[in-house]
Structure formats: structure tokens, C-alpha cells
């Protein structure tokens, strides 16, 4: 790493010149820039390979392969599905449900969290009701869902959205509670009203909690949509799982799960990027 001074900041033009620091340009090598990411990604790859190899070896040898299938079979099944279009069709449907459900649920949850998180007393009154609603196993209400919302895509989107809602809501509301009073007061002193306090302090300060809510709820967007498809549907990855399971086609079940994991991974990556963007100001280590 060679460093060359680029800009000297010690010359304030006003009466007060700081005896301060100096900014330098840093020539970072490829490794300085990407070394960390390389290590992480190769570790992940390694781990993945190890798991797959172990799985392949174990299947049929130590564990009954009718229940765990084997990676090669799964890949073969994915290939079949890819060729005959099953994969694209069903994945596309599920992805739509997941994304819609996630966005709607997260938006509603964030809004609810910010509104109720700030209105302490109202939140305290509603809390037990919210928790009671949240605690109801949605599958138990599947009949009601079917009757009220039908068996179309709406129902799956709603199921996904509902689960996401609660997780984002509770995490956001909790984060709002933890916001530093000093910062809120600072905005009040600058003449900020409720709106400004919400957007300029509460929102950025509770970002971490909100993002945890998002991260935690990504999987539930998937689970919600898939459960919806298990309950009532004739397409989507949930249907594929159901169909394969009924035919004892474990490779099919796992193939669908692999696709789900990939979707989860992508969503998780997106949330991670948002996290990075929002947390720029935080120390790295």
C-alpha cells in the first residue's frame, strides 16, 4: 500500500485553522479491495461442495434415499423441469406471490411499526390483540382464507404478506422504542414536528431494527406463499412440492426446495445490499 498526500486539510480560511488530520489517497491492491469478498465467497462455495458431496455419499448408503434423495437426482430433476417448462412456469408464479407478499407485508409492517411505535399507549392497548392474531396458525384458517379471498394468487400473496407484516411490524416497533431521545429532542429544537421527527430521526435511527425485520421475514414470505399453494392451488412451487411428495418423488420435493432456497438467497442478498447502503456510516469492524 503506497500512500501519497493528496489534499491537505489544515488550511481553514477562517480565523480558526484546525491543527487537524491529513487526507491521503490510498492505492489499494486488488486484494485489499476484493480479498475479503473472495475469502467469504470461496468459503461458502467450499462449504456448499462439502455438504453436497457428503449428501451424495450418504444417500442410499447411510440414509434411506427415498427420504433424502441425492444431489445428482435433484439436479437431473431440475434439468427435466427446465426442459419441459415446468420449472419456469411454476417458479414465476411463486416468485410473483413472494415478491408481492413481501413488499405489501413489509410496507404495511413498517408503516404500522412507525405509527404504533410512536404512539406508545395505543400500542400497549393493541399489543395483546396483535399477538393473538399473530399466534394463530394460518393453516388453521385456510378454509376462511379460501372462502374470503378465494384460491387465486391473492390468497397466497395475502398469506405471505400477513406473516411478513407481523415480523416487520414487531421489529420496527421495537426499534422505534429504542431511538435515542437526545436525537429526537435535537429535531424538536430545530422546529421539527411529528413528521420531521419520523422521517429525519426515527426512520434512520431504527433502520437496523427494520432491516432485521426484513431479513427475518424474507423466509416467511416464501413460507407463506408456499403454504398458500399447499392449501389451495394447482401451480407454483408449493404445488410441485405437494405433487412430488404425493408420488414419493423426493428428488422432486428437494428440487422445488432448492429453487426456493435460491429465491430466498436472492431476496436475502437484496436486503443485505440495502443494509450495506443504509449502514454506510457505521464503523466496519
Amino acid at each position: 500500500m503506497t500512500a501519497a498526500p493528496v489534499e491537505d486539510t489544515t488550511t481553514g480560511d477562517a480565523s480558526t485553522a484546525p491543527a487537524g488530520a491529513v487526507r491521503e489517497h490510498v492505492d489499494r491492491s486488488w486484494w485489499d479491495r476484493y480479498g475479503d469478498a473472495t475469502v467469504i465467497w470461496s468459503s461458502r462455495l467450499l462449504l456448499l461442495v462439502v455438504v453436497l458431496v457428503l449428501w451424495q455419499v450418504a444417500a442410499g448408503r447411510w440414509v434411506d434415499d427415498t427420504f433424502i434423495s441425492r444431489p445428482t437426482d435433484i439436479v437431473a430433476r431440475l434439468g427435466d423441469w427446465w426442459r419441459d417448462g415446468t420449472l419456469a412456469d411454476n417458479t414465476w408464479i411463486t416468485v410473483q406471490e413472494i415478491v408481492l407478499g413481501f413488499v405489501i407485508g413489509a410496507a404495511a409492517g413498517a408503516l404500522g411499526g412507525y405509527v404504533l411505535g410512536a404512539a406508545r399507549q395505543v400500542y400497549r392497548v393493541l399489543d395483546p390483540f396483535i399477538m393473538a392474531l399473530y399466534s394463530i396458525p394460518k393453516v388453521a384458517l385456510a378454509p376462511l382464507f379460501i372462502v374470503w379471498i378465494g384460491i387465486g394468487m391473492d390468497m397466497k400473496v395475502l398469506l405471505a404478506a400477513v406473516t411478513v407484516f407481523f415480523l416487520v411490524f414487531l421489529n420496527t416497533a421495537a426499534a422505534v422504542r429504542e431511538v435515542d431521545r437526545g436525537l429526537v429532542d435535537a429535531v424538536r429544537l430545530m422546529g421539527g414536528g411529528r413528521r420531521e421527527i419520523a422521517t429525519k430521526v426515527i426512520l434512520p435511527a431504527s433502520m437496523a431494527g427494520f432491516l432485521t425485520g426484513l431479513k427475518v421475514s424474507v423466509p416467511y414470505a416464501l413460507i407463506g406463499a408456499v403454504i398458500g399453494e399447499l392449501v389451495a392451488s394447482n401451480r407454483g412451487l408449493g404445488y410441485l412440492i405437494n405433487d412430488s411428495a404425493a408420488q414419493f418423488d423426493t428428488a422432486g420435493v428437494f428440487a422445488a426446495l432448492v429453487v426456493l432456497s435460491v429465491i430466498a438467497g436472492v431476496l436475502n442478498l437484496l436486503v443485505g445490499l440495502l443494509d450495506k447502503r443504509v449502514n454506510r456510516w457505521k464503523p466496519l469492524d
Partner: protein
Amino acid sequence: ACGAGSSSKAGTLNVGQISDSVAFFPLFIAEKQGFFTDEKLSLGERPRLGTGAKVAAALKSGSIDLGGGVMTDALNLAEIDDQARLTTSLISAYYVDIVVGGSAGKGGGSLEERVLALKGKKIGITGPGSGTEALVTYLFEQAGLDPAKDATLVNLGAVATAAVGALKSGRVDALSFFQPIGQQAEAAGVGSIYISPAAGDVPSLDGDLHGVVFSRQSILDDKADEVAAFQTAIGRALGVIRGDGSRVRDLLGQYLDGTPDAALDKLVPILQKETATTPAVVESQYEVARTFHVQSGLVDAAPSYSTLVPSRFRA
């Protein structure tokens, strides 16, 4: 985890079943009337497992010793497990009905005309690969329709509330569901039974073996005595069902607690007719089922009677 190891004379059997459909009424009777106790047999775990896949998993893991389901489940299991064995016949009729919304009823018309009228409709089934789906597939193919294109099959799961609810709210146009959903729907004025193989609407399915109990060879070897006792008790229960109608009506009322009386009244004669005469598996009935399953494409190949049914369970 669940007592699969014990093999004493007066032993325990864990019997799993798919649901609380009419097929398992004999088990209920045998339990209620003390037939199992008479045989010094006690039932351990009695899980409702919902799908054939889970029954298979429970059998393989030793969680249950016997699985109650339909022939579809037994044949599916046979495809992946050559130890699969069929032990008991419960219902010798295809006890799935096609139910349509409103009170249109059967109306007239031949079977084919009625099936053609279902073209383009949304039909609720319990799930893919189930006997309910098989019936629709079979009927459609017999009528020259393609079930994949000419109808939308919707999985509703095995609970009555969802099925009847979906029909009532118009989310599906018809149901292909096991008894007593049809009777319940009729009693609730939600729909009416449209095609009923059990009532002889589908001649090629007459005498079809459908409600069965199956197991695995290793368990049969291990618990030979218990299974034999089970068989005897079920035999007595089947006798009860085919006997005094009012007694059956009483027991059915207890079994399907909460089902409207009208539905129960209608069910009793149907049940008496479709209940197997003997717990032993009758070859002719087995063959009807086997043909049906292969023809409707539910299974690729079904084992022969002699492979799947051990000699002491044959009629």
C-alpha cells in the same frame, strides 16, 4: 420412538390413518365396542397423517405399524418399497363423490354427458396424487377429455371446512371428495352429489377395493400376532356395520360428531353397502383397483395380487 419393538402376545399396535373419513369407521367401531380389547390388543398412537406420503414415512420409520388409507397410497408405497404389504380391506367401493354446487342434483343424462358438463370447471380435490384426483382424471379420460386442459384442479387439503367452504362461496364449481363431504354438502344445502361411484354411477369401478390398511413385511413378521388380532377385530366391526342399521346410525353419529343428521341418515345405507364383507383382501376387488390405478396413470405399475397381499390376508 413409538413402541415398534414390542412383540409380546397381548401387544400394542400403532395405527396411523390419513383422515377421519368413513373408511376408518370400522376402526372406530372396533375400538368403541372393545373388539380390540377382546383380542388383547391395545392401540397406541393413532395419528391422522393427512397424506399418503406421511403414512409411508411413518411406516418406514416405525412410528406406526399399520397405515390406513386408500389403495392409491398402498400402491404408491409399493412403488418405492418392496416390503409394502396390503393387509386389510375396509371399503370395497370407490367412496369418492363428485359434488357440484347448488341443488342441480344428478339430473338425468348418461355418465358421459355428466362428465362432459364438468368441462372447463374448477374442481376441488384433496391433493395431487390422491384418489380424489384420480377419479377426475379417470372420468375425464373415459369421456375423452384431457383433465389437464379441460378442467382446473384445485388442491383443498383434506379438511371438510375448506372443501365445503370453497364450494359454498363459489371458489370451486365442483368437488371430488371422499365421503362424507358429499352428504355434508347436501345436508348444508350447499351442493349435491353428482357422480357417485359407490352408488354405481361408474360401472367400471363397481366392486373396487378402496379403503385399506397396509403395512410392511418386517412389521408383519414382527407383530404377526397383533396383526392377526387386529384382523379379527376389524372383521367383527365390519359385521356390525353390515348388521343393524339403527345401531350403525348411532355409532356413526358418535364417529362423525357434529355432522348434520340428514347427512348421517343418508350415509348409513351407503356405508352398509360399500363396507367390505371380510377384512381379507379379495383378489377380484384388488384387480379392479389395480386396473383403475394403472389406467388413470396414478401409478406406473402395480404389483400383482400375490406379491402385495401375503397369503394369510387373502380371501
